């Protein structure tokens, strides 16, 4: 089971190449409503494909529709969020009917959480499966981190996995085991690219559109570019604004965003994700855009202003010296925040995420690196969970130090 921030992916090995997917959300119906009383068998929380059937009004979207994971984390005291996660676990276990009297003794469940999940999330999730074991559906459970699962799914035993999502990013070295002590977390993700896009829209006269989050995200994906060298890219774009002109038409409307002479700003969107330290961003901070700051959550400090190159170096240099060259030779990028396109006309000025990471490392004297995107970004975590569950010996027991092994229930 892969508990992503947006989607819950699940299924046994019989699913083949791809898991089943539902939104990682739950709906708490109004028990006083006529609709709820008419369907008396409705559960306390609805998950999966049935959620849209229960949505009644826009008010429901804010008060009753719960997305439990915020940047891969669940607050310890957020009982509703934990109820949604519990319901999703049951939904996953019940989605594959079992033939009666065929010797089925329960699933060995492999769940996957963010690399920065604090210990209480492990404890809570394991307790949920312990309760589920009473139904006979669960024989044993284990939890692995999402970067570890990515490395397993990708088939590389020594590597650095960089997972970057909406709210944060994690740099995780792996050498047959995750090297937990060398993990580096960044308080920066796709949401920060949305923030700078919003500021750019305000500066260029589209302040009313800048308030709509989903529109801002679509504009980011449409016009945002990652520069190889920001100063060079800005100079090129200012010198040739027609070539680099950034336009976005909102489908189904007459609204069209055109940055015109300010189209050079499109390079700020990508640069900000990878390196927010350029002086050009200071003017945005002075005008009120929040500067990414260091935040401590549980045992993990999320660094705000560390660029990706420095973050990778800081992480790798916490590992044994003999291992470091091998780690630099296998850097895997995972997560939607690394999905940057490079239009053919801009090649050489705009780059993709692997090229940008290599450039950041090269500027710091690290050469002989190999950086790749994961081959199956949407499913690599689930692939890794399936392989892990298939290969781990039955007698390898759960260990709280190593955070690996089977926690078994019952006989």
């Amino acid at each position, binding site marked *: 089971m892969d508990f992503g921030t947006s989607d819950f992916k699940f299924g046994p090995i*019989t*699913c*083949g190449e791809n898991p089943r997917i539902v939104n990682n959300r739950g709906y708490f119906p109004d028990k006083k409503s006529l609709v709820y009383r008419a369907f008396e068998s409705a559960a306390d929380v609805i998950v999966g494909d049935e959620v849209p059937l229960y949505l009644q009004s826009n008010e429901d979207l804010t008060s009753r529709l719960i997305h439990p994971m915020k940047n891969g984390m669940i607050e310890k005291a957020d009982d509703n969020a934990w109820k949604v996660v519990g319901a999703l676990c049951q939904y996953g276990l019940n989605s594959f009917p079992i033939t009666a009297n065929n010797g*089925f003794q329960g699933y060995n469940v492999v769940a996957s959480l963010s690399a920065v999940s604090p210990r209480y999330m492990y404890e809570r999730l394991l307790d949920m499966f312990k309760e589920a074991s009473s139904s006979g559906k669960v024989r044993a459970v284990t939890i692995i981190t999402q970067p570890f699962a990515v490395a397993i799914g990708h088939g590389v035993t*020594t590597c650095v996995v960089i997972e970057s999502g909406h709210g944060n990013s994690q740099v995780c070295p792996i*050498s047959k085991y995750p090297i937990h002590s060398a993990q580096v977390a960044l308080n920066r993700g796709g949401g920060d690219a949305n923030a700078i896009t919003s500021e750019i829209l305000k500066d260029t006269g589209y302040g009313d559109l800048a308030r709509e989050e989903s529109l801002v995200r679509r504009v980011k994906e449409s016009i945002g570019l990652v520069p190889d060298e920001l100063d060079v890219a800005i100079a090129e774009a200012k010198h040739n604004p027609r070539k680099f002109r950034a336009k976005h038409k909102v489908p189904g409307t007459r609204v069209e965003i055109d940055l015109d002479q300010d189209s050079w700003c499109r390079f700020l969107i990508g640069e900000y994700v990878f390196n927010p330290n350029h002086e050009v961003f200071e003017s945005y901070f002075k005008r009120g855009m929040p500067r990414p700051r260091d935040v401590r959550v549980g045992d993990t400090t999320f660094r705000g202003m560390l660029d990706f190159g420095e973050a990778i170096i800081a992480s790798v240099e916490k590992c*044994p010296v003999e291992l470091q060259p091998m780690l630099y030779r296998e850097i895997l990028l995972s997560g939607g925040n690394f999905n940057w396109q490079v239009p053919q006309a801009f090649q050489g000025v705009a780059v993709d995420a692997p090229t940008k990471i290599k450039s950041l490392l090269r500027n710091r004297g690290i050469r002989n690196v190999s950086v790749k995107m994961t081959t199956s970004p949407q499913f690599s975590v689930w692939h890794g969970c399936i392989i892990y569950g298939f290969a781990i010996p039955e007698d390898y027991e759960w260990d709280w130090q190593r955070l690996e092994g089977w926690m078994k229930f019952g006989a």
Partner: protein
Amino acid sequence: MDGLSIEQSSNPGSLCFVSSSERTYVSILTPSDIIQRNRVIDALLRLSSLRFEGTQPYIAAPRILSAALDSQTLRSSGIGLLVYDERRIEEVIKPGPIQASNIQQKPTPVNTDNQPLLTELAELKSRYFELEQNMTRMMVEFKSIQLHALNSTQPSHTSLSEHFDTLQPSPMTCDQRKLQEGGPLPSFFVNNPWLDVLSKRGKTEDHLIAG
């Protein structure tokens, strides 16, 4: 063969041919050997080490199992492949260049400064790890051959299809039907070195590599 003599080999199931200029070592696997994992691993390890002694290594396997062998893995390890049946023996892959002469042609100059030695040591260790990874991939490949042999020769063992008969996913996808019919594992299993690494969890102390 002209100019070739057979040298006594201390290992059963192997042949050693010697000529004036080279030595050829053939490790022969029978269908029953394929089922014994240690026999396969033992043969591969011996053949790998022989490359560095100036010997041309071959592994000989029954033709019926040749389709399951990954020729790229054997080529990258410099091990040749012979396949045989009741009628003939065929050389499918030639062994790679002999390693011993390459090492002899590049003597390392004596240098009192420690740094070049440390750098070279790190490089050698890196090559060793790469060789170990190649070995792991080959072991995974032969493990899949073992599973295949078990399913075809010992019907009393639980095959993958029998195991998944206990589940009845509905509706069934094409992939699910393939698995139920004892078909191949999903593509992300193929040549995945983690299968071997994870199967040893709790049995080796290789966790010292990690922090």
